[in-house]
């Protein structure tokens, strides 16, 4: 049963298995174990980023393609939900229409970019996505009539997902049975399903061909696989799933703006999560996203403390300033590409 659910990809390392189980249990029971607003928010963010990072890994770790437009796809999904909810009124139909159309547009855009760049050289894709993504980000902030510009959009989601809606009286383990809880579980189970779907995909014949292409595209072509087709399809699927993750994020936040869904910073976050967690395994996305989001929320406080502790020495306080945490992550990123290209998961599996 478990083997089937995980598509035969068992963790293959005791430590990894324990880590994954702990993460799964914590996320599944987050509203009960960590009842604060901030911690539930963190848990939802972790769920969504696991899917987002896993979909990026589908491209990077399996397809061997570097894309800088993943936040664009993420944002397309988010803006899809936002625009549908604004124009169609609150309701589940708006959420559905928004998510699906966002995913569709993302896949189409990925198809276009892929056809243009992947048929020539895979590295063109990295450059072209960077250019297109920044153009879209600029466009979104300029078309303020449609997208709300820099301010973004706030909208209403169905009442059933709000804190005012109570589906049962009383409390369970001290947690109110309200729409907020429903919303968390909507996000959680959607993410779980998407993740298992991707796990299934990478262990299907399609995923095997992608791995073959990553290892040696020339040879894969010679065996008779149309490399460009496989790469383009992987890109489209990855884009559509990223858009769905964006839709979930938009439902969770009830707000979209360029900063939360389109900015280059998120793109860099995704890159860091993939590489630190481990490229080429779906579990890497789980570990990477969890560690990163936790670090983002709690490590900055720690750095603040450290920065105050060394306040007498020149430059050091600036280097340890909480806003400079990207500096240290960047260093960690470079080191991990050199020394642990398989990331945390690869290390754990090796050291078994």
């Amino acid at each position: 049963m478990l083997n089937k659910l995980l598509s035969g990809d068992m963790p293959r390392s005791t430590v990894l298995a324990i880590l994954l189980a702990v993460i799964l249990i914590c996320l599944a029971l987050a509203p009960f174990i960590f009842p604060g607003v901030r911690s539930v928010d963190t848990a939802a963010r972790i769920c969504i980023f696991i899917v987002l990072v896993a979909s990026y890994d589908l491209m990077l770790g399996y397809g061997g393609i570097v894309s800088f437009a993943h936040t664009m796809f993420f944002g397309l999904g988010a803006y899809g939900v936002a625009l549908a909810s604004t124009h169609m009124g609150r309701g589940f139909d708006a959420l559905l229409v928004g998510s699906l159309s966002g995913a569709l547009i993302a896949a189409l855009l990925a198809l276009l970019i892929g056809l243009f760049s992947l048929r020539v050289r895979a590295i063109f894709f990295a450059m072209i996505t960077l250019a297109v993504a920044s153009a879209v980000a600029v466009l979104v902030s300029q078309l303020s009539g449609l997208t709300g510009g820099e301010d973004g959009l706030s909208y209403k989601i169905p009442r059933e997902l709000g804190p005012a809606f109570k589906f049962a009286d009383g409390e369970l383990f001290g947690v109110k049975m309200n729409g907020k809880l429903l919303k968390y579980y909507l996000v959680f189970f959607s993410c779980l399903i998407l993740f298992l779907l991707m796990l299934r995909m990478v262990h299907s014949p399609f995923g095997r061909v992608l791995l073959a292409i990553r290892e040696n595209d020339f040879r894969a072509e010679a065996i008779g696989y149309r490399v460009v087709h496989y790469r383009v399809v992987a890109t489209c699927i990855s884009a559509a799933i990223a858009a769905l993750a964006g839709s979930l994020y938009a439902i969770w936040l009830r707000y979209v703006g360029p900063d939360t869904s389109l900015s280059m910073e998120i793109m860099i976050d995704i890159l860091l999560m993939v590489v630190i967690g481990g490229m080429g395994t779906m579990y890497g996305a789980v570990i990477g996203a969890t560690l990163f989001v936790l670090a983002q929320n709690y490590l900055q406080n720690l750095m603040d403390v450290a920065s105050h502790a060394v306040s007498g020495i020149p430059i050091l306080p600036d280097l340890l300033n909480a806003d400079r945490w990207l500096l240290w992550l960047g260093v960690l990123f470079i080191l991990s590409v050199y020394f642990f290209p398989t990331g945390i998961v690869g290390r754990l599996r090796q050291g078994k």
Partner: protein
Amino acid sequence: MSAAPEHNPTMARMSLAERLEPHAPVLLIIALMILGLIAIPSTSSWLTLTVSGLAMGMMIFIMASGLTLVFGLMDVINFGHGAFVSVGAFVGISFLLMLEHMTGAPSLWLNLTAMMVAIVGAMAATGLMGWAFEKVIVKPVYGHHLKQILVTMGGLIVVEQLIIVLWGPEEIFINRPEALKGAITFAGAALEKYRLVAVGIGLVVFLAMRWVLRRTKIGLIVRAGVENGEMVEALGYRLRLVFVGVFIAGSALAGLGGVLWGLYQEVITAHMGNQTMILIFIVVIIGGLGSVEGCFIGALMVGLMQNYVAFLEPKLALISNIGLMVAILMWRPMGMIPVVKAK
């Protein structure tokens, strides 16, 4: 015996289209200018826009040339190239701020000397940084495109953050040197003096680069290395050293471009390298990865396009460049002047 098939060879001149074909990229620039002239109602504003488009194109060319050569020579794609642009701008502007008594004076020569000092300082700093960057970040990942992209992107993040540590997170506003402020009027069009200087510097750099690549021994080795590196090494040249030299030169040029770009925008931020990278990539792809001439033509086209469209429909400026890139890739999938590899 059957008659011999009819065989009447004729000597025909190549048709005009065939004769123009090799020059198509250069002609495209002229075509773009003419299109601009038709689309923009007044000639004087067209002239202003053309000059600023050329200035912008020259600056992008200076920044992009190093990237394209580095790729052509060693198949190394450097996503951290923008870091040199930012560092160049910050170092150069710091020099200019130190030399305020020279930039504030109304004398053109004093101003230009101050600018030269800033440029030399910035180029030295970024050249040195390029050397370190090559040694620490790029060297361990030769031959792996995926790792190169990731690692150089990581390098860009680190350098950006270090700039914030050293110069602070706020954007720095700068004054152009006194004599380069304002504009001169020519044929009814206002031409900003600074842009004319930028066009001049860009032309000098392009011609110097062309001269080095075409007329000197080192240029010969570089061009041969782009075409067939293994053969050049077999002939006894240490291509790695040449490559390091090209990397340093390219970084220094990016620094020069950074100073010019900072003075052009009159404001610098730590993220400016990242922003210019987008234009640089578009230019490099349009021109054909590895080709200096293609890079020059692509840069001019992007500069002109950006300025014309920004005048006609401001919201479409960045999109128009992407459209240009798409159109050119449909016409020539490897870029305008593809580099032929003898491999």
